[in-house]
């Protein structure tokens, strides 16, 4: 199983800290995990091209995401929404990019008042792109971090649960899909 962990911000440290933890929690599973931190890449702005027609970091980013079975998206909250840089990643991909992919969400925010941003802003995009979304997500607040570490034990438990549930969902859907495809006579 091919897992991509996307840290969806070019600035700050909290989302990356959380996604490092997601990578750690993936260790107990036998999967190929790749961490993509938007801060490490220089992406072009989406200009309507097909994703195969970009080059450099942009091509690497889109190809790596398209090749994934599972995508764990980490995002901070900027101006009561996801960062424009993360939206750009979605815009670079084709319309049904997340079809047959399981997508999970980790959100970091400065305030609990942003809790519904996942449901109101991120999930509609992922749904439109045909993702199978893991029902639970992990919402991490300012107070859960200290010195680039997550200091709330509950967050650690919830991140582990999210990772376990995501892989189970992906594996289950894969089996169902293979079962269905085996019925076809070609």
């Amino acid at each position, binding site marked *: 199983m091919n897992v991509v962990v996307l840290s969806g911000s070019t600035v700050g440290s909290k989302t990356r800290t959380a996604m490092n933890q997601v990578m750690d929690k993936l260790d107990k599973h036998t999967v190929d995990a790749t961490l993509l931190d938007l801060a490490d890449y220089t992406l072009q702005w989406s200009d309507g091209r*097909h*994703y*195969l027609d970009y080059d450099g970091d942009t091509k690497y980013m889109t190809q790596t995401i*398209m090749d994934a079975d599972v995508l764990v998206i980490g995002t901070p909250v900027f101006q009561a929404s996801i960062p424009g840089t993360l939206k750009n990643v979605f815009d670079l991909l*084709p319309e049904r990019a997340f079809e047959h992919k399981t997508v999970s969400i980790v959100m970091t925010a400065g305030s609990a008042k942003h809790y519904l941003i996942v449901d109101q802003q991120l999930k509609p995009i992922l749904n439109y792109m045909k993702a199978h979304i893991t029902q639970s997500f992990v919402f991490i607040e300012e107070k859960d971090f200290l010195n680039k570490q997550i200091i709330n034990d509950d967050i650690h438990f919830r991140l582990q649960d999210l990772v376990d549930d995501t892989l189970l969902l992906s594996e289950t859907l894969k089996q169902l899909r293979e079962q*269905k*495809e085996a019925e*076809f*006579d*070609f």
Partner: protein
Amino acid sequence: MKAGHAGVPMFLAHLGGAASHFKGTIDAYRETAKANGHDPDSLPIATAGFFYTAETTQQAQREYYPHINEGMKLTNGRGFPKQQFAQSADIRSVVNVGSPQQIIEKILYQHELFGHQRYIGQMDFGGVTMAQLRNNIELIGTEILPAIRKYTSKGS
């Protein structure tokens, strides 16, 4: 709409889905052409789509699926969904894959729907072999075209 405005012929690529889905585009083209002073009857329309025929529809699907799937991966980054490909056995699907009789019925159904003047079959796709292409051309020449011409040559 743009083609209708300009009064130029239109060429439509139909990769998949229900044939009736594309009728809206053709109607809009003709209406726009008419509204802009062009005669829709004098504006030819060509459609293009995947084409593969073999002795039976089942055989055609079996032989063609690996090619359409790999070809789509190369051109589009993703394969052709099996669920959607399975629908090509239905006359209402725009994908012209099947036995010669099935293809004849499909092309005539599409012709009735669209009233188009030309159909272009995308045959050399995803590594279809030379022997398969030869067989396809043979079936087009001996079975498909003669049957279609019976219907279309009466000035329809």
